[in-house]
């Protein structure tokens, strides 16, 4: 718990684009130390949810608190408590990864540069300009920028996609360690293996509704995959509401 409040708290949060409902009313609590994998097909509402949580979009209804801060009322304070990796990494192309992290540390008032580079596996390339990086390296640089100041909440939009197996594995292990130390982590992904390996909890979203909320450990071996097939592929109906 952060200041007596859960890491992420949504109450009756919904979002519509015109007549299209992207997110049906949703209640969700994610506590400190939870590493939550958010999975679902394209257009399911994952990115809408993450954008609401990171103050990039307003909810049509409901209240959103992250790190104990009302995201709508005080987006700046909320951002200070969240490390964000957006779907498309936003970085200064003509800075090196080390300089990018120095910039973030200066903005956030502190951080551990070497630990962030280590998490992202960028130590050897930290002094190269970001525009020389491959897509996977850019994603890792964005991840390093998100974790460098050790924020209490991490929100990662497909941050593991496109990473080579070695780096994906390293990032998963390091994220799991951060979660064990109390960080709240919510990550969207299409990689069921990743969710099965590291997530302490899995949320499956379809048609703007959460259709499954489970703990992989309790599901047993291959449980996430079977739940996914049950709820997302074999015509499992979304719950009403």
């Amino acid at each position: 718990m952060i200041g007596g409040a859960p890491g992420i708290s949504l109450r009756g949060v919904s979002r519509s684009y015109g007549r299209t409902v992207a997110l049906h009313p949703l209640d969700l609590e994610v506590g400190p130390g939870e590493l939550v994998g958010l999975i679902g097909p394209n257009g399911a509402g994952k990115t809408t949810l993450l954008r609401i949580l990171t103050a990039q979009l307003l909810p049509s209804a409901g209240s959103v608190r992250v790190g104990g801060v009302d995201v709508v009322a005080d987006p700046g304070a909320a951002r200070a408590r969240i490390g964000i990796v957006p779907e498309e990494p936003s970085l200064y192309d003509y800075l090196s990864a080390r300089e990018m992290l120095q910039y973030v540390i200066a903005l956030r008032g502190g951080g551990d540069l070497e630990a962030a580079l280590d998490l992202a596996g960028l130590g050897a390339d930290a002094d190269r300009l970001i525009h020389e990086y491959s897509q996977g390296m850019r994603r890792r640089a964005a991840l390093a920028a998100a974790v460098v100041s050790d924020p209490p909440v991490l929100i990662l939009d497909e941050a593991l996609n496109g990473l080579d197996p070695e780096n994906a594995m390293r990032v998963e292990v390091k994220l799991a360690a951060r979660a064990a130390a109390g960080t709240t982590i919510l990550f969207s992904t299409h990689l069921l293996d990743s969710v099965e390996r590291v997530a302490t909890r899995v949320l499956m979203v379809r048609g703007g509704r959460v259709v499954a909320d489970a703990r992989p450990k309790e599901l047993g071996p291959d449980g996430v995959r079977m739940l996914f097939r049950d709820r997302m592929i074999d015509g499992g109906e979304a719950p009403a509401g």
Partner: protein
Amino acid sequence: MSAPQARGDASANPYAWAWGLERSRRHAAGSWAEKLAPWGPLAAALLSLPLWGASLHDYLGRADGPRNALFLAMVSRMALVLAGALCLSTYSALIRGPERGVLSLHPLRPNAWWSAKMLDLFMGRLSWLGVTLVLMAPLHVAPVLAGAAAGVLSGAWLVGIGVGAAVNLAAPLAARTPALQGTLDAIRGMNPREHAALLYAPGFALGLAGLAVILSVQGAGAWISGREGAWLLVVPHVVGVAALVGSRPLASAVDRLPTLLGEIEAAWAPYADPEESRRVYLEWMAERAPAVLGREMLKDLRHGWRRLRTGISGAWLLGVLTAWAFAAGEPTIGAQLGAVALAITGGLAVLLAVRDPVWLDEAVPVARRVRTLARAVVVLGWGGPVVAAGLFDGAGTCLIFAFLALGLGGVGASTGLWLRGRAWPVYTAVALLAVAVVVGLGPGVEVVR
């Protein structure tokens, strides 16, 4: 390869530090054309001096009355254009700057951001003031006029940035102020409410800055003719500085920009898809062309219409004004407007070339002559209304510039070389030079009345 050693320290002002590094390294990595590009407008202004300086000197030799009237007319227009361009560019820099994506991820340090942004704005727009002052250089033979021009133009520059900053930074707050919701609803048209404040901000800033500039011109008039009221000359300076100081506390509004812009984009999202399935303007031209040519034309017609529509419709607007000017017996103005319109239209070909994906060339090679021909036909189609407008009168001048513009577009389109990247300063320079040529060399054209 390691990045060059960074100077300075991020902790004092992280924005200024990061943007400074970005700017200097981008500059160092750019081609020679990109390095020279920012100097283009200044060079064009210098080159144009002999062309129009002679005409100006003719007028300077006349009696005080007509001379002063000409001077005030000329300076006021230039100052208004300068202030207007700054109000618009301040909006782009503050609200939709390229660093928006990074800013939206982290907490804001408003004072540091404001200082870095203002430094960026002032340094980046210094050459704009330089261009206008160079264009006024022929006035050196009349020091009072030169001083008055410098006063008005520097005031326009300062008030354009100052008022632009204050109004554009106030816009995100206005968008969320309950008391203004009714007003915003009344003026927003089809736009989302949040968008209305941002949409109208540059216009509002332009109105305020324009008022200050007009007062300044009146002050300049009083000064050069020895009347009372010369103090009005410094109104834009005072307003500009006051607005700048007032804009500093408004910087905290930038914290709300990501949500605001996200909402605007979300509001437009439902309208985005139908556009893709609709036929575009002039698509019939591609259907009637031979298959190979038609395929290239279709690509340019669709891509151009969807990405460069502002340029196309902006050129048409100038085309209408061209026709109006010719019809009203103002061939000089008509020729100038037509030239600018056609330069814009020609520039569209260059922009298309700049955005050609390299991988497509490699995957599906197309003969350069086919691409150039297709692009020329498409641009000629877009420029058609402008050329038609020019045919009312002064057809020769307009057509010459049509071919000049298309030629320039063709060079860029076929080589994609010299205008690649940040091309606009070069093209601005060329357009400026083209206008100067019309003004200075147009046969029998009376420049100013």
